[in-house]
């Protein structure tokens, strides 16, 4: 038995051979056999003519359009499948990446990262350790003291300026002038 021979060919009958003949799929021997059958059977010849006419006319017909709602439904379903497939694809890629030769490189890189950040870390701005709550409270007290001091100095300076400018330069001269005027009026 020829393993490449179609076991269903005999069952398909001459129609299958006619289609195959028109498609150019028959061997020389099969073409010779078919020619003999066609010569002996006018009905078979008629079927061949019909098949040839169908094959010629079919491409000339307009292809039927798919209804828009069907197109949209297909796109929607396809997108949903693709979206649902994303995490799986990502996991596959990651596992492929991590499981490959990059694993030792990543390990080495991680070690280098820790080492480099440890050695090249900029010097801390504050000399003392900051984790102690007492130190923060002490600093807060110092800030409050500084602001209180600044406020007091500002207030005293303001009072001094007010006293110098207003009382010495304005109030006292005006009082003096008014007093002199009143004295003159009394006299």
């Amino acid at each position: 038995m020829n393993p490449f021979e179609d076991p269903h060919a005999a069952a398909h009958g001459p129609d299958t051979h006619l289609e195959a003949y028109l498609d150019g799929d028959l061997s020389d021997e099969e073409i010779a056999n078919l020619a003999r059958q066609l010569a002996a059977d006018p009905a078979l010849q008629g079927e061949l003519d019909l098949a040839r006419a169908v094959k010629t006319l079919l491409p000339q017909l307009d292809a039927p359009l798919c209804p828009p709602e069907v197109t949209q439904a297909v796109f929607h379903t396809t997108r949903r499948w693709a979206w649902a497939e994303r995490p799986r694809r990502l996991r596959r890629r990651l596992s492929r990446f991590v499981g490959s030769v990059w694993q030792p490189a990543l390990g080495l890189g991680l070690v280098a990262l820790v080492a480099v950040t440890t050695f090249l870390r900029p010097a801390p701005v504050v000399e003392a350790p900051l984790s102690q709550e007492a130190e923060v409270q002490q600093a807060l007290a110092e800030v409050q003291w500084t602001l209180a001091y600044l406020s007091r100095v500002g207030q005293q300076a303001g009072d001094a300026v007010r006293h110098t400018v207003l009382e010495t330069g304005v109030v006292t001269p005006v009082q003096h002038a008014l007093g002199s005027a009143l004295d003159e009026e009394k006299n």
Partner: protein
Amino acid sequence: MMKRLLCGLALVLGSVLVPNLHAQSGAYDLHADPGYVDFDRLADWFGEPARLEVNIKGALLRLVAEASRYEDPELSDMLTKVTAIQVRGFPLRRSQFETMETKADDWASTLSESGWDTIVRVRNRYEYVNMFVRTRDDAIAGMVVMVLEPGEDETIFLNIVGEIDPAQVGRIGRRFDLDLAYDSDY
């Protein structure tokens, strides 16, 4: 394969090294801040280290701001705009007053020449107060206060670096008690 491995390692090292080097080269320099004043000369003036020394800056200042956020939001907000606070306190004898007043005057002139504006100046007998602010882009970049008064704990030099509102400082400062807030060694 070895080539790929080396390339990967170089990428990892590069991504780590470049930001670190950048951070080191672009680090904030407090001494270059226009609102900063160097108090190092003061110890030479008085011939002894400061009896009161406050240096609050950087991460410690941020922590203080955060620590006070709940109880005193206004103080916290003000501190977020401040870069550093430094205070020096010295004892001053009456016999030293005139010498120190002259030094302070010279320093005040230097500050004025370098862009600091005098906002308050008070001079009485044995009392000297000078307050300066420096502005940058229409905002205060820092404040300097010099107070000279004979006594053990009356002579104070103060520098606040950062964007501050003097009125806000006065308003917030009035809430605190000088004696209770700072437990000094005087």
